[in-house]
């Protein structure tokens, strides 16, 4: 028995032909965050602090779909969500954030500073201001890559999970269900 850590930067239809321009920054980000987590565990940082620390780093990296770099809604806005939980079943979650730089830290504050486990949208934003966490204009989170992805997804009339490649325009006549785009997953 000893310490252990794992992290992910999203799953999906990642093509084997993924360009180095997209792959290398993600690999570097994952490697960097693993290093941070390992060093924290070696320094006897609590697992709760470690997972928050690592996820904050991933949120701050624009190559991942969280925090800065979050993908866009149909309206071209960001709505971020996060959750944290420990082995005592203490937990906190947030949804519908539009200005909070590190949603995972707000989720932890929900866990530690409220009698609740889940705050969403206006209430979560108000709580963020009450707690004094860092906020920025929504435009901070929107990257040119994600604007382009949204435009392609709209053109194809579908939603996309992480790393899914946009369908060719000719395929937009296929039924949403055939693309795995339905409520049945």
């Amino acid at each position: 028995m000893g310490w252990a850590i794992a992290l992910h930067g999203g799953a999906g239809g990642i093509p084997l032909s993924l360009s180095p321009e997209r792959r290398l920054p993600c690999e570097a980000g994952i490697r960097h965050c693993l290093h941070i987590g390992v060093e924290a565990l070696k320094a006897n940082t609590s697992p709760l602090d470690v997972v928050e620390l690592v996820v904050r780093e991933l949120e701050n990296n624009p190559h991942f779909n969280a925090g800065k770099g979050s993908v866009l809604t149909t309206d071209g806005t960001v709505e971020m969500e996060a959750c944290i939980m420990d082995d005592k079943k203490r937990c906190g979650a947030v949804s519908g954030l539009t200005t909070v730089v590190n949603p995972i830290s707000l989720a932890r504050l929900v866990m530690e500073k409220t009698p609740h486990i889940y705050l969403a949208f206006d209430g979560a934003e108000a709580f963020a201001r009450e707690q004094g966490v860092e906020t920025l204009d929504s435009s901070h989170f929107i990257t040119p890559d994600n604007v382009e992805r949204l435009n392609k997804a709209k053109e194809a009339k579908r939603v996309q999970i992480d790393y899914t490649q946009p369908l060719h325009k000719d395929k937009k006549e296929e039924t949403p269900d055939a693309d795995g785009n339905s409520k049945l997953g």
Partner: protein
Amino acid sequence: TVGCVAVDSFGNLASATSTGGFVNKMVGRIGDTPIIGAGTYANNLCAVSATGKGEAIIRGTVARDVAALMEFKGVSLKEAAAYVVEESTPKGNVGLIAVSAAGEVTMPFNTTGMFRACATEDGYSEIGIW
């Protein structure tokens, strides 16, 4: 989506997940990440963070199922996670990372790939995509 799970040398566990959701999601849509037991879960046996198609992960109570299989069936973390990803969630929908209180690590997925990494105290480390 991004996530991290960790366990220390005393068996203390924690899980965290954060996301922007789907590209082109409807305004107001909530995914699996903030749903306790779906995209994120931890108890005294394991800590789990999931990624993939939120609607499928919520329906499958993916993260809690891993813990429940360990709790009620007595299987290992790897067996529990493998069952949830390979047998009880539709292909192409989910990936997860998990650690157990005993220091096991597993990172199964049934999508084409998942950006992932892990390390353990005995010196093992891994970074992968496919």
